[in-house]
């Protein structure tokens, strides 16, 4: 045999059929989780915080989340190949871990319902005024559920396949609206001042999805290292794209005027034009955006399913897909009166998520390190 792979390597499962996730997939998933938030109704939050410095708020928020990501990566590497769940179980015990991750699940389910519903509402308002929003909501759930049921590696591969197109879409959009922009609209530079930087602190949950990616860290090829790199690079790319979009919203619509816009991305795609005759291309952006949204929610649903499976001790999570989609669909039938109520719901959800996920992570970290120190301290004393 020529020099090459060893016999042992040949007996490893095939790299394309195993269920592991590499850096590319993770990066792409992080991007789709975060980057898409610049294109829905979420910019409203950042604009509320930062005014015309909303783009800085978005970046600041990401910067605040970085330590948590770092902590998670450290915990993951400490947990070895077992993932964050096993580590939490070590320090919290079986009941505690169920309680904490049960809360994570409930809040994430809430986020899934509210966000998918918000997307359905968006589509209804902007493109399909006669189609019932509930139908769009159900359709989105089914499509994303199908993708999610295929497993995280499928979602990851799908994301990594689509990432170049998504970035291309962004570039095309920026080229298309270039002559509408007036970059001076972003002055005064600091916008609302302090609030632009303190505001995101209460809404760290805008970036919480990146932490959920740690749940399946045992599937990552390089373990904690891949997690850290993928989440920082992908999330950073996502945060940058959010910042760029916010910048563009303000530059294109003008600062006080952007407050009046509910769906700035969709309005922006309407403004995009390439030369004099290729205009009105929002439907193409809609298509790209919808695919990205499917990936986005497929990841949401996957984590819902994953947590549900682990909490229930169920076998194959695929079998939970249909009940879960049914449940989410019913849960999404809450009456909505206006965009403001939708906004208020999401605001509350974000604050709750921030208040639960981040402290629980710190709790796990603190408990783990205390335990570790006690362990090592005992060891030292023995020596």
């Amino acid at each position, binding site marked *: 045999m020529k020099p090459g792979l060893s016999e042992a390597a040949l007996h490893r499962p095939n790299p394309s059929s195993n269920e592991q996730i590499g850096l590319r997939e993770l990066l792409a998933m992080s991007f789709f989780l975060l980057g898409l938030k610049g294109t829905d109704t979420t910019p409203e939050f950042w604009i509320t915080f930062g005014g015309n410095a909303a783009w800085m708020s978005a970046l600041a928020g990401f910067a605040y989340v970085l330590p948590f990501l770092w902590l998670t990566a450290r915990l993951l590497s400490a947990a070895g190949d077992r993932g964050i769940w096993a580590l939490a179980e070590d320090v919290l015990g079986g009941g505690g871990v169920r309680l904490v991750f049960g809360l994570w699940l409930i809040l994430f389910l809430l986020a899934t319902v509210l966000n998918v519903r918000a997307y359905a509402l968006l589509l209804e308002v902007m*493109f399909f005024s006669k189609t019932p929003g509930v139908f769009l909501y159900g359709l989105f759930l089914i499509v994303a559920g199908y993708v999610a049921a295929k497993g995280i590696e499928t979602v990851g591969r799908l994301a990594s396949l689509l990432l170049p197109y998504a970035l291309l879409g962004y570039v095309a959009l920026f080229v298309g609206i270039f002559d509408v922009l007036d970059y001076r609209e972003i002055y005064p530079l600091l916008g609302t001042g302090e609030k632009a930087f303190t505001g995101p602190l209460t809404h760290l949950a805008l970036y919480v999805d990146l932490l959920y990616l740690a749940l399946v860290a045992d599937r990552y090829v390089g373990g904690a290292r891949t997690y850290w790199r993928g989440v920082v690079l992908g999330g950073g790319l996502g945060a940058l794209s959010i910042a760029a979009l916010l910048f563009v919203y303000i530059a294109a619509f003008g600062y006080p005027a952007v407050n*009046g816009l509910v769906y700035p991305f969709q309005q922006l795609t309407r403004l995009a034009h390439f030369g004099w005759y290729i205009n009105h291309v929002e439907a193409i952006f809609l298509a790209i955006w919808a695919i990205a949204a499917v990936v986005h929610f497929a990841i949401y649903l996957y984590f819902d399913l994953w947590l549900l499976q682990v909490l229930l001790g169920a076998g194959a999570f695929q079998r939970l897909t249909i009940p879960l989609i049914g449940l989410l669909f019913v849960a999404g039938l809450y009456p909505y009166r206006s965009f403001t109520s939708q906004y208020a719901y999401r605001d509350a959800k974000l604050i709750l998520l921030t208040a639960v996920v981040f402290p629980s992570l710190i709790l796990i970290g603190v408990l783990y390190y205390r335990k570790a120190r006690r362990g090592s301290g005992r060891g030292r004393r023995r020596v």
Partner: protein
Amino acid sequence: MCNGKDRIFEAAREDAESPGVGGAGRHRKDRGGGEDGGGRGAGRCRKGRSAAAGEGGRTGGPERRSVGRRLVQGLGAALLALFLGGCWDKVELEDIAFVTAIGFDRGERPGLLDVTLQIVNTQKATITLGTAAEGEPRMTNITLKNTTPLMTKDLANAVITRRINISQTQAFLISEDLARNVDLYSVLAMTIRDPEMRRETPVIITRERAEDFIRKNVPRFETLIYEFYRYKLNRWKDTGIVPLSSMNDYLRAHAAGQPYLFVYASARRTLPGEKGRMDDTTAGKAEIKGGDPVEMIGSAIVYRGKMIGALTGEETRLALLLAHKLRVASYYMSFRDPVKPIFQVSTRIKNETPPLIRIDLSRDPMVITVDVPFYVEVLSIPSKVDYVTDRSLQKKLIQSILEQMDEKTARLLHKAQKEWRVDLFDWARYARQKFWTWDAWERFDFADRFPDARVRVRYRIEMIDFGKQFNPDERSRPLEDLLGRRTIRPPG
């Protein structure tokens, strides 16, 4: 020979009834039991179809048929789901009436508007059918009195057969009467809520009622009216005598508390012309004969939702230039000949480098300095003064051009600061850069301070050039007989 096959399907059955899909197996058995007659009939029908759709004459065992039946059932369910869902927003193309222009006028009832929709006859667009539809008009105009913009789409169906679609609207026309008396912002903001409405649509203010404008605007060459607005817009990009006003830019300016310049147009071309003003005039007053029935020149200033005045074509260009919003590569201007003042020197102006706008807020009143670099190409010198070779004469010409520019600018600045008291040049955008936070900027209240600001506009001629020809043609006849027969645009 059949053995192997049977074995396979045994295996298949095992697979189907394995714990993984146990539910499915159970369901099937249940269904095999009690069911009503109608259902059975349907089942039989399905069975027949699946067998036929199967392997031709070679029918397999009972399990094979079951697979086929399931296939049909699955497909049936999928198709049902497909046909039950969707199609709400579907609309056939021929069922749509495309609105090319929308006009807004003040209604008789306060708070309500007269909305005019101009609908184009699409059959005129196709070569093969255009002749077939010879008897049909190329467009139709509908005016709905005393209504709101959003109501019109449905209301118009009282008199028109098709679904109104405004996504291809080429222009909004607003009558001066409406713009001067009603809050324009609320009108446009009302309109923009329609998802079909597009923010980049040009907005034009008409001197007369928009309804009349639309009715009179039957262009000479363009069979399809939308082409008129499109070509017109393309030309504006070259001339700069009207601003490129769009809905989005207006909303942006309004929210920032800034004035905004709209295209000014008129279909009443019989107004007494202002003699010898060339492009220094407003719509309806230009000295042009023939052409299309409408005239678009100059701009209307809208501030805080109300129209407060109008600029001539030349002033518009100047205002845009000083605001660093002139997107025109080059344009023509004529200046008084400094040596023989009855003549005009025709020039082409290029602003290759943008004006430099500096605002000094530390002084009170604030000082705004604008440096405008210029590139002048002298195209014709009807007076035959030798500016081309004589350097001292050249200097004189330059001096004169600068003086004339200063004069025009001073007139415009006076209007802006003293007459209308608005920041016509959007210099607030430059002032904003000096602040760190929005609160500080709001507190500063630029709009309030602008009328008292000391504005210095300095023109600088970067280069002067004399066009394609070095010398005025010596052999040509003296041009004195051209006196009083000046053309609108000097021959380039």
